[in-house]
Protein backbone atom coordinates (compact mmCIF):
# COMPACT_ATOMS: atom_id res chain seq x y z
CA UNK A 1 0.00 0.00 0.00
CA UNK A 2 2.96 2.27 0.53
CA UNK A 3 3.79 2.27 -3.18
CA UNK A 4 0.20 3.26 -4.00
CA UNK A 5 0.37 6.18 -1.59
CA UNK A 6 3.67 7.28 -3.14
CA UNK A 7 2.22 7.17 -6.66
CA UNK A 8 -0.85 9.12 -5.54
CA UNK A 9 1.37 11.71 -3.91
CA UNK A 10 3.37 12.07 -7.11
CA UNK A 11 0.23 12.35 -9.23
CA UNK A 12 -1.18 15.04 -6.94
CA UNK A 13 2.14 16.89 -7.04
CA UNK A 14 2.27 16.74 -10.84
CA UNK A 15 -1.33 17.93 -11.14
CA UNK A 16 -0.89 20.84 -8.74
CA UNK A 17 2.34 21.96 -10.40
CA UNK A 18 0.77 21.61 -13.86
CA UNK A 19 -2.27 23.63 -12.74
CA UNK A 20 -0.02 26.53 -11.79
CA UNK A 21 2.28 25.77 -14.72
CA UNK A 22 -0.44 26.35 -17.33
CA UNK A 23 -0.78 29.98 -16.22
CA UNK A 24 2.98 30.49 -16.12
CA UNK A 25 3.18 29.01 -19.61
CA UNK A 26 0.39 31.30 -20.86
CA UNK A 27 2.20 34.24 -19.29
CA UNK A 28 5.44 33.36 -21.07
CA UNK A 29 4.01 32.62 -24.55
CA UNK A 30 3.21 36.22 -25.69
CA UNK A 31 6.65 37.43 -24.59
CA UNK A 32 8.32 34.46 -26.22
CA UNK A 33 6.50 34.93 -29.53
CA UNK A 34 7.25 38.66 -29.54
CA UNK A 35 10.88 37.99 -28.69
CA UNK A 36 11.17 35.65 -31.70
CA UNK A 37 9.52 38.29 -33.90
CA UNK A 38 11.84 40.95 -32.49
CA UNK A 39 14.98 38.88 -33.08
CA UNK A 40 13.89 37.79 -36.58
CA UNK A 41 12.98 41.35 -37.46
CA UNK A 42 16.43 42.48 -36.42
CA UNK A 43 17.93 40.10 -38.97
CA UNK A 44 15.66 41.40 -41.74
CA UNK A 45 16.27 45.08 -41.12
CA UNK A 46 17.91 47.38 -38.58
CA UNK A 47 16.15 48.20 -35.33
CA UNK A 48 14.59 51.69 -35.29
CA UNK A 49 14.17 51.60 -39.07
CA UNK A 50 11.07 51.16 -41.19
CA UNK A 51 10.54 48.00 -43.20
CA UNK A 52 7.82 48.07 -45.88
CA UNK A 53 6.53 44.54 -46.31
CA UNK A 54 5.54 43.14 -49.67
CA UNK A 55 1.79 42.46 -50.01
CA UNK A 56 1.03 39.35 -47.94
CA UNK A 57 0.65 36.03 -49.73
CA UNK A 58 1.10 32.38 -48.75
CA UNK A 59 4.86 32.86 -48.42
CA UNK A 60 4.50 35.47 -45.68
CA UNK A 61 5.05 33.48 -42.49
CA UNK A 62 6.49 36.13 -40.23
CA UNK A 63 3.21 36.94 -38.51
CA UNK A 64 0.18 34.66 -38.27
CA UNK A 65 -2.99 35.60 -40.16
CA UNK A 66 -1.65 38.39 -42.34
CA UNK A 67 -4.37 40.26 -44.20
CA UNK A 68 -3.98 40.12 -47.99
CA UNK A 69 -6.07 43.31 -48.18
CA UNK A 70 -3.67 45.41 -46.15
CA UNK A 71 -0.28 46.90 -46.85
CA UNK A 72 2.04 46.70 -43.86
CA UNK A 73 5.18 48.51 -42.73
CA UNK A 74 6.85 47.85 -39.41
CA UNK A 75 9.47 49.35 -37.15
CA UNK A 76 11.03 47.21 -34.48
CA UNK A 77 12.03 49.73 -31.89
CA UNK A 78 14.55 49.76 -29.09
CA UNK A 79 14.46 52.93 -27.00
CA UNK A 80 17.43 52.17 -24.77
CA UNK A 81 19.60 54.63 -26.69
CA UNK A 82 16.91 57.32 -26.85
CA UNK A 83 13.59 58.20 -28.52
CA UNK A 84 12.57 57.30 -32.03
CA UNK A 85 10.76 59.57 -34.47
CA UNK A 86 8.14 58.01 -36.75
CA UNK A 87 6.77 59.95 -39.71
CA UNK A 88 4.03 58.87 -42.05
CA UNK A 89 1.83 60.65 -44.59
CA UNK A 90 -1.80 59.76 -43.99
CA UNK A 91 -3.70 58.54 -47.07
CA UNK A 92 -7.41 59.00 -47.63
CA UNK A 93 -8.37 55.38 -47.17
CA UNK A 94 -8.04 53.34 -43.97
CA UNK A 95 -4.66 53.80 -42.30
CA UNK A 96 -3.42 53.12 -38.78
CA UNK A 97 -0.24 53.29 -36.72
CA UNK A 98 -0.29 50.82 -33.82
CA UNK A 99 2.25 50.33 -31.06
CA UNK A 100 2.81 46.98 -29.34
CA UNK A 101 4.90 46.21 -26.30
CA UNK A 102 6.75 42.95 -25.78
CA UNK A 103 3.82 41.18 -24.12
CA UNK A 104 1.68 41.89 -27.27
CA UNK A 105 -0.35 44.70 -25.62
CA UNK A 106 -1.45 47.34 -28.12
CA UNK A 107 -0.50 50.29 -25.90
CA UNK A 108 -1.19 53.14 -28.33
CA UNK A 109 -2.63 53.76 -31.73
CA UNK A 110 -3.36 56.50 -34.24
CA UNK A 111 -5.76 56.19 -37.15
CA UNK A 112 -7.40 58.27 -39.83
CA UNK A 113 -10.82 57.01 -38.80
CA UNK A 114 -13.67 58.23 -36.53
CA UNK A 115 -12.65 61.43 -34.69
CA UNK A 116 -9.20 61.35 -36.31
CA UNK A 117 -10.31 61.83 -39.92
CA UNK A 118 -8.70 65.28 -39.70
CA UNK A 119 -5.37 63.49 -40.10
CA UNK A 120 -6.11 62.61 -43.74
CA UNK A 121 -3.70 64.49 -45.98
CA UNK A 122 -1.40 65.42 -43.07
CA UNK A 123 1.93 63.89 -42.09
CA UNK A 124 1.89 62.26 -38.67
CA UNK A 125 5.09 62.78 -36.73
CA UNK A 126 5.34 60.87 -33.47
CA UNK A 127 8.17 60.93 -30.96
CA UNK A 128 8.22 57.57 -29.26
CA UNK A 129 9.91 57.70 -25.87
CA UNK A 130 10.89 55.01 -23.39
CA UNK A 131 9.37 54.48 -19.93
CA UNK A 132 12.30 56.27 -18.28
CA UNK A 133 11.76 59.58 -20.15
CA UNK A 134 9.62 62.55 -19.26
CA UNK A 135 7.00 63.31 -21.98
CA UNK A 136 7.09 66.98 -20.96
CA UNK A 137 10.64 67.23 -22.31
CA UNK A 138 9.44 66.66 -25.87
CA UNK A 139 7.28 68.69 -28.21
CA UNK A 140 4.70 67.64 -30.76
CA UNK A 141 2.92 64.31 -30.64
CA UNK A 142 4.61 62.16 -28.00
CA UNK A 143 3.86 58.54 -27.17
CA UNK A 144 5.45 56.86 -24.18
CA UNK A 145 6.16 53.16 -24.48
CA UNK A 146 5.74 51.12 -21.28
CA UNK A 147 8.72 48.99 -22.36
CA UNK A 148 12.04 49.87 -24.01
CA UNK A 149 11.42 47.44 -26.86
CA UNK A 150 8.43 46.76 -29.05
CA UNK A 151 6.94 46.93 -32.52
CA UNK A 152 5.19 49.71 -34.42
CA UNK A 153 2.94 48.56 -37.22
CA UNK A 154 1.60 50.73 -40.03
CA UNK A 155 -1.47 49.36 -41.80
CA UNK A 156 -3.00 50.84 -44.92
CA UNK A 157 -5.96 49.60 -46.92
CA UNK A 158 -4.72 47.82 -50.02
CA UNK A 159 -8.10 47.21 -51.64
CA UNK A 160 -8.96 48.76 -54.98
CA UNK A 161 -6.41 51.27 -56.22
CA UNK A 162 -3.63 51.04 -53.65
CA UNK A 163 -1.31 53.64 -55.23
CA UNK A 164 -1.72 56.30 -52.55
CA UNK A 165 -1.57 53.77 -49.70
CA UNK A 166 1.62 52.27 -51.09
CA UNK A 167 3.15 55.71 -51.61
CA UNK A 168 2.25 56.69 -48.03
CA UNK A 169 4.06 53.66 -46.60
CA UNK A 170 7.07 54.11 -48.83
CA UNK A 171 7.40 57.76 -47.76
CA UNK A 172 7.12 56.84 -44.08
CA UNK A 173 10.17 56.60 -41.84
CA UNK A 174 11.31 55.45 -38.42
CA UNK A 175 14.63 56.75 -37.10
CA UNK A 176 16.41 57.66 -33.89
CA UNK A 177 15.57 61.22 -32.77
Amino acid sequence: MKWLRTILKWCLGIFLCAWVGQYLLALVIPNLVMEILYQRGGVETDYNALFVNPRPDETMRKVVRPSPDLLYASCIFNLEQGPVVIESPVPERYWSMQFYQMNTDNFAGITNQRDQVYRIGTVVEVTLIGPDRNPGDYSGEVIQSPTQRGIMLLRASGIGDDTSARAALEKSSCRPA
Partner: protein
Amino acid sequence: MKVLRWLAFALLTLVLSVILMVRTIGAGLGAMSVENGDWVTSTNTGSTDAGIMLKATIALGGLLASTREDSMYYRLSSVDGEPLRLNCRYLIEGDDYDANWWSITAYGWDNYLIPNKLKRYSFNNENIVRKEDGSWQIYLAAGEQHGNWLPVGSSGAPTWRKLTDYDFDLLLRLYTPGRAYLDEPQSAALPTVTLEGCA
Protein backbone atom coordinates in the same frame (compact mmCIF):
# COMPACT_ATOMS: atom_id res chain seq x y z
CA MET B 1 17.55 7.15 -10.01
CA LYS B 2 16.42 10.17 -8.00
CA VAL B 3 17.45 12.56 -10.79
CA LEU B 4 15.56 10.46 -13.31
CA ARG B 5 12.46 10.55 -11.13
CA TRP B 6 12.55 14.35 -10.88
CA LEU B 7 13.19 14.61 -14.60
CA ALA B 8 10.08 12.51 -15.25
CA PHE B 9 8.18 14.69 -12.78
CA ALA B 10 9.23 17.86 -14.63
CA LEU B 11 8.41 16.39 -18.03
CA LEU B 12 4.99 15.11 -16.98
CA THR B 13 4.24 18.46 -15.32
CA LEU B 14 5.15 20.31 -18.51
CA VAL B 15 3.04 18.03 -20.71
CA LEU B 16 0.08 18.30 -18.34
CA SER B 17 0.55 22.10 -18.15
CA VAL B 18 0.27 22.32 -21.95
CA ILE B 19 -2.83 20.10 -21.97
CA LEU B 20 -4.46 22.10 -19.17
CA MET B 21 -3.57 25.38 -20.87
CA VAL B 22 -5.15 24.26 -24.14
CA ARG B 23 -8.27 23.17 -22.25
CA THR B 24 -8.44 26.39 -20.23
CA ILE B 25 -7.98 28.45 -23.37
CA GLY B 26 -10.80 26.53 -25.04
CA ALA B 27 -13.13 26.91 -22.07
CA GLY B 28 -11.99 30.44 -21.28
CA LEU B 29 -12.41 31.62 -24.84
CA GLY B 30 -16.04 30.63 -24.55
CA ALA B 31 -16.41 33.09 -21.69
CA MET B 32 -14.23 35.77 -23.29
CA SER B 33 -15.75 35.45 -26.74
CA VAL B 34 -19.08 36.22 -28.28
CA GLU B 35 -20.90 33.94 -30.70
CA ASN B 36 -22.96 35.25 -33.56
CA GLY B 37 -24.31 32.21 -35.40
CA ASP B 38 -21.25 30.18 -36.38
CA TRP B 39 -19.02 33.26 -36.15
CA VAL B 40 -17.02 33.94 -33.00
CA THR B 41 -15.38 37.19 -31.94
CA SER B 42 -13.52 38.36 -28.88
CA THR B 43 -14.35 41.63 -27.22
CA ASN B 44 -10.84 42.10 -25.82
CA THR B 45 -8.56 41.30 -28.76
CA GLY B 46 -5.48 43.53 -28.80
CA SER B 47 -6.59 45.28 -25.65
CA THR B 48 -4.47 45.66 -22.55
CA ASP B 49 -7.51 44.27 -20.68
CA ALA B 50 -7.13 40.87 -22.33
CA GLY B 51 -6.51 38.08 -19.82
CA ILE B 52 -3.35 35.98 -19.86
CA MET B 53 -5.06 33.07 -21.62
CA LEU B 54 -6.50 35.32 -24.32
CA LYS B 55 -3.12 37.00 -24.79
CA ALA B 56 -1.51 33.59 -25.21
CA THR B 57 -4.15 32.62 -27.76
CA ILE B 58 -3.71 35.85 -29.71
CA ALA B 59 0.08 35.48 -29.64
CA LEU B 60 -0.26 32.07 -31.25
CA GLY B 61 -3.16 32.72 -33.59
CA GLY B 62 -3.49 36.45 -34.24
CA LEU B 63 -0.41 38.35 -33.19
CA LEU B 64 -0.42 42.17 -33.52
CA ALA B 65 -4.20 42.36 -33.69
CA SER B 66 -5.85 45.76 -33.56
CA THR B 67 -8.30 46.85 -30.90
CA ARG B 68 -11.95 46.33 -31.79
CA GLU B 69 -12.62 50.06 -32.21
CA ASP B 70 -10.12 49.89 -35.08
CA SER B 71 -11.13 46.55 -36.51
CA MET B 72 -13.25 43.62 -35.43
CA TYR B 73 -12.43 40.05 -36.27
CA TYR B 74 -15.06 37.34 -36.57
CA ARG B 75 -13.74 33.83 -37.01
CA LEU B 76 -15.61 30.80 -38.33
CA SER B 77 -14.18 27.28 -38.21
CA SER B 78 -17.35 25.17 -38.33
CA VAL B 79 -20.83 25.23 -39.80
CA ASP B 80 -23.64 23.87 -37.61
CA GLY B 81 -21.02 22.25 -35.41
CA GLU B 82 -19.24 20.51 -38.30
CA PRO B 83 -15.59 21.59 -38.79
CA LEU B 84 -14.74 23.14 -42.17
CA ARG B 85 -13.39 20.46 -44.49
CA LEU B 86 -11.44 20.57 -47.73
CA ASN B 87 -13.68 17.96 -49.36
CA CYS B 88 -16.80 20.09 -48.88
CA ARG B 89 -18.26 23.08 -50.70
CA TYR B 90 -19.64 26.03 -48.78
CA LEU B 91 -21.72 29.01 -49.79
CA ILE B 92 -21.14 32.36 -48.12
CA GLU B 93 -23.90 34.90 -48.65
CA GLY B 94 -23.92 38.48 -47.57
CA ASP B 95 -24.47 42.13 -48.20
CA ASP B 96 -22.73 45.28 -47.10
CA TYR B 97 -21.91 45.91 -43.46
CA ASP B 98 -21.74 48.96 -41.24
CA ALA B 99 -17.98 49.41 -41.41
CA ASN B 100 -15.49 51.51 -43.36
CA TRP B 101 -14.62 48.35 -45.29
CA TRP B 102 -14.64 44.61 -44.82
CA SER B 103 -12.89 41.48 -46.05
CA ILE B 104 -13.30 37.71 -45.74
CA THR B 105 -10.10 35.67 -45.77
CA ALA B 106 -9.53 31.91 -45.71
CA TYR B 107 -6.64 30.63 -43.58
CA GLY B 108 -5.20 27.15 -43.35
CA TRP B 109 -5.19 25.32 -40.02
CA ASP B 110 -1.62 26.62 -39.64
CA ASN B 111 -2.97 30.23 -39.46
CA TYR B 112 -1.35 31.29 -42.74
CA LEU B 113 -2.78 32.09 -46.16
CA ILE B 114 -3.62 29.03 -48.23
CA PRO B 115 -1.38 28.40 -51.27
CA ASN B 116 -3.38 28.47 -54.52
CA LYS B 117 -2.69 29.08 -58.20
CA LEU B 118 -4.84 32.20 -58.41
CA LYS B 119 -3.13 33.73 -55.38
CA ARG B 120 -6.63 34.63 -54.22
CA TYR B 121 -6.92 34.62 -50.45
CA SER B 122 -9.87 36.86 -49.76
CA PHE B 123 -12.75 38.92 -51.05
CA ASN B 124 -13.48 42.43 -49.91
CA ASN B 125 -16.25 44.97 -50.43
CA GLU B 126 -14.56 46.29 -53.58
CA ASN B 127 -13.39 43.23 -55.48
CA ILE B 128 -16.46 41.09 -54.92
CA VAL B 129 -18.89 40.62 -57.83
CA ARG B 130 -22.38 41.49 -56.65
CA LYS B 131 -25.88 40.67 -57.76
CA GLU B 132 -28.13 43.45 -59.00
CA ASP B 133 -29.51 44.11 -55.53
CA GLY B 134 -25.99 44.56 -54.13
CA SER B 135 -25.89 41.25 -52.29
CA TRP B 136 -23.20 38.68 -53.06
CA GLN B 137 -22.28 35.02 -52.87
CA ILE B 138 -18.89 33.39 -52.42
CA TYR B 139 -18.23 29.73 -53.18
CA LEU B 140 -15.69 28.26 -50.82
CA ALA B 141 -14.21 25.04 -52.16
CA ALA B 142 -10.98 23.35 -53.20
CA GLY B 143 -12.22 22.74 -56.77
CA GLU B 144 -12.83 25.54 -59.25
CA GLN B 145 -16.22 27.27 -58.97
CA HIS B 146 -18.02 29.88 -61.02
CA GLY B 147 -18.51 33.43 -59.75
CA ASN B 148 -16.77 34.54 -56.57
CA TRP B 149 -14.63 31.51 -55.87
CA LEU B 150 -12.48 31.53 -52.73
CA PRO B 151 -10.08 28.63 -53.22
CA VAL B 152 -9.02 26.49 -50.28
CA GLY B 153 -6.49 23.70 -50.19
CA SER B 154 -3.76 22.12 -48.16
CA SER B 155 -2.01 24.37 -45.69
CA GLY B 156 1.65 25.14 -46.19
CA ALA B 157 2.76 23.53 -42.91
CA PRO B 158 3.46 19.77 -42.63
CA THR B 159 0.37 17.79 -41.64
CA TRP B 160 1.99 16.19 -38.58
CA ARG B 161 1.75 19.61 -36.94
CA LYS B 162 -2.02 19.76 -37.36
CA LEU B 163 -3.83 19.85 -34.03
CA THR B 164 -7.16 21.35 -35.13
CA ASP B 165 -10.30 19.46 -36.10
CA TYR B 166 -10.92 21.84 -39.04
CA ASP B 167 -8.89 22.01 -42.26
CA PHE B 168 -9.19 25.78 -42.67
CA ASP B 169 -11.15 28.67 -41.24
CA LEU B 170 -12.55 32.04 -42.26
CA LEU B 171 -11.80 35.45 -40.82
CA LEU B 172 -14.16 38.35 -41.39
CA ARG B 173 -12.51 41.69 -40.75
CA LEU B 174 -14.63 44.79 -40.26
CA TYR B 175 -12.55 47.95 -40.27
CA THR B 176 -13.86 50.84 -38.20
CA PRO B 177 -16.98 48.87 -37.32
CA GLY B 178 -20.25 50.66 -36.58
CA ARG B 179 -21.97 50.80 -33.18
CA ALA B 180 -23.98 47.62 -33.77
CA TYR B 181 -20.77 45.56 -33.85
CA LEU B 182 -19.22 47.30 -30.88
CA ASP B 183 -22.35 47.24 -28.72
CA GLU B 184 -24.08 44.05 -29.83
CA PRO B 185 -21.51 41.85 -31.54
CA GLN B 186 -23.68 38.79 -30.86
CA SER B 187 -26.54 39.95 -33.06
CA ALA B 188 -25.05 42.41 -35.60
CA ALA B 189 -25.50 41.50 -39.27
CA LEU B 190 -22.92 39.03 -40.64
CA PRO B 191 -22.61 36.85 -43.73
CA THR B 192 -24.18 33.38 -43.55
CA VAL B 193 -22.18 30.27 -44.36
CA THR B 194 -23.93 27.05 -45.41
CA LEU B 195 -22.63 23.63 -46.29
CA GLU B 196 -23.63 22.75 -49.85
CA GLY B 197 -22.22 19.23 -49.97
CA CYS B 198 -19.17 17.02 -49.50
CA ALA B 199 -17.31 14.71 -51.85
